[in-house]
């Protein structure tokens, strides 16, 4: 590993945060250092993180950076609120890099307040096809290695979390190979998400209300799981409920089997055109003591996301990152990009026709 930490001064987390909250990008050098630091931290974590309430659960974000800021406005900024993010930070939305950079810096600054687990999009193969790779190449240039830095870091993300020992949190769902928590603990997670096996199932599988047991999906790979396996898993491991993300729902959350399995979805107006709501799950008390100590806080798209969406929808313009591809003059700017200073967050540049003479 050729990561050179110049000095602690160059990695000023406060300054990083300040820039990221403004929607500016960090330089490749900084990202390299951040990823290195975070790997050092995450390598000590077990596959299953133990957390305690009060805590707020956040589902898929998918690069909708302005909606992530909205989440902080609604749920409170770290470190005032504890956060558990359930994966799928990148792809689809237009600001995957801003989103993952901000989450990385927050995790480094408040390691015990912010927890990031791995989703199926935190993988090399998936990000190649669904936007993150392209975004890295567009914003940092074809030669840059930020995509590699980020995806190498994803290998270190833990796979699941438990809250107060009674809530099991994971991105996708259960696996036939995971009867008990021990089977999660023994996974070698420091690798690309495989097609097969418990690690894949944890980030991929979906509940199906009509099912009792596991069933392979009609695609020919992957599982759907039913109530019996849920009951068995909860009972064997002493959990009360399962919280997961992974599936779009119009209402922002979905409750299966009277709350035994719950979906939290945190990307409002998904892909800037689904018109769906999003939610974060605020767990205020230990649910063992008070089963009603939680709340799905439902919200709509942030005005900034909405503006961006409206402009795309109206065909008035598209996002242009050209101004970000300036010089990377690390010496003069302590590692910051020249261009990052004062660039407007919503870069609506190209005029497109309102209508299209399609054939």
């Amino acid at each position, binding site marked *: 590993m050729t990561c050179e930490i110049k000095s602690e001064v160059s990695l000023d987390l406060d300054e990083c945060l300040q820039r990221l909250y403004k929607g500016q990008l960090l330089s490749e050098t900084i990202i390299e250092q951040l990823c290195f630091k975070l790997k050092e931290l995450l390598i000590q974590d077990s596959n299953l993180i133990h957390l305690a309430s009060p805590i707020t659960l956040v589902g898929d974000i998918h690069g909708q950076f302005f909606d992530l800021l909205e989440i902080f406005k609604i749920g409170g900024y770290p470190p005032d609120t504890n956060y558990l993010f359930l994966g799928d930070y990148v792809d689809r939305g237009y600001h995957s890099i801003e989103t993952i950079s901000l989450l990385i810096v927050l995790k480094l600054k408040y390691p015990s307040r912010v927890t990031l687990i791995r989703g199926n999009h935190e993988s090399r193969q998936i990000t190649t*096809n669904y936007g993150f790779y392209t975004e890295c190449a567009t914003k940092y240039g074809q030669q840059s290695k930020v995509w590699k830095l980020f995806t190498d870091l994803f290998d270190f993300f833990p796979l699941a979390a438990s809250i107060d020992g009674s809530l099991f949190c994971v991105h996708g769902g259960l696996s036939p190979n995971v009867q008990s928590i021990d089977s999660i603990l023994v996974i070698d997670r420091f690798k690309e998400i495989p097609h097969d096996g418990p690690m894949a199932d944890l980030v991929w599988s979906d509940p199906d209300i009509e099912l009792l047991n596991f069933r392979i999906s009609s*695609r020919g790979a992957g599982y759907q799981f039913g109530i019996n396996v849920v009951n*068995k898993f909860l009972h064997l491991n002493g959990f009360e409920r399962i919280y997961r993300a992974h*599936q779009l729902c119009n*209402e922002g959350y979905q409750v299966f089997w009277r709350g035994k399995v719950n979906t939290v979805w945190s990307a409002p107006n998904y892909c800037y055109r689904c018109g769906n709501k999003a939610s974060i799950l605020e767990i205020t008390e230990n649910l063992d003591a008070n089963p009603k100590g939680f709340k799905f806080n439902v919200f709509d798209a942030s005005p900034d996301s909405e503006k961006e969406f409206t402009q795309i929808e109206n065909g008035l313009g598209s996002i242009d990152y050209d101004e970000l591809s300036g010089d990377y003059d690390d010496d003069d700017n302590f590692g910051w990009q020249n261009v990052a200073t004062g660039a407007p967050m919503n870069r609506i540049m190209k005029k497109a026709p*309102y209508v*299209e*003479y399609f*054939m």
Partner: protein
Amino acid sequence: MVKANNAEKDEASSGPTFSSHDVINHENQPSRKAITKAPDGLYPKPIASSFNTFQIDAARRMHMLTINSRMPPRFKTPNSDPRDTKAGQSRHFHDEKSSESRSPDKNEQSTTDKDVQVQVPAMGCDDQNCQNPRCAHCGAVIIPAPAATFPFKDTPSISINDWEIYTARKPILTKEEIEHFESILGVPVPEMIFGNNKVEVLNSNKNLHICFNSLDALRTVSVDNKDILKVSYADEWFKSRAKAHHNDDDVLMEIIKPYDWTYTTHYFGTDLTVPEGGFVHDDSYTIPHDKLTKHSPILFFDDMTLFEDELGDNGISTLNIKIRVMHDCMLVLQRSFVRVDNVLVRIHDTRLYVDFEENLVVREFKRQQQDYDKLVKSCSRP
């Protein structure tokens, strides 16, 4: 640039198009759902095979035509004469149309804008929400209304002579609506399901009412085992799983209630009413490109998705629909695009062309499919 399959015949192929002359006096017919009644084997599978030079050329010309037609008129190149491409295209398209029987009252409908009756909202619109205004400068219907974009409440519409056109764009379905859809369809709906979106073309004088919506589109999704694809790594996955779950009662290793999870649809719109006789099948007819490429102002434009699914990140399946309405004609393009990574790519196009001057309705289908590897090979540099 993939192989077009010319061999298939569609149900609609049994019917004629019509001119106003044909249909103007017919009584209302009971509504007819062509798709739900479609007998088995109606949609022969496209043949996946390599494509020949002729087809590549035709596809290239079609692409050029599209590009040219998007350019403002002043940039139009001399090469863009649409007639050049006709010969090639007729082999690709399945057209229905009537014939040379043009309407006799043609003279009454002049091509000048003044004689065309444009009305916004459409004359049959009884919805108070139909408030999408027309642009003061160009006359085009403004969609979405700037102040009312989110959540979408637009129900724009326009009338040209006695034709009415309606579209609707709404958010994805709620949990209850999804359950309702699934109880009808018997299969899970796509991840993003815009079940309340629609495009409707209506002419009550001529007894024609065609609608495009996602529920009817999903009805054409196959539940036949032989149509069902597997993801590229399915065999490998299945083998290792079957071994692991040997004697495990918790895991069901067969696919129950199989359905085409790629949501490939053979949908060509719902014929709520069509004039007696229906459409006439005529492969020799093509949509008149000269009229569509002449850049008359667009009075009404909309572009929407009916459904979209990322196939569990194994590719993508979308059903998109676009509409543009000019003074003299209109065009609807419904495109189903399916990409199954490392397996195949499919494009199913349906075009609906209405000529207001000649009262001619043409519906055309084009199905294309190619193996993923072959396509990638043909796109990459030697």
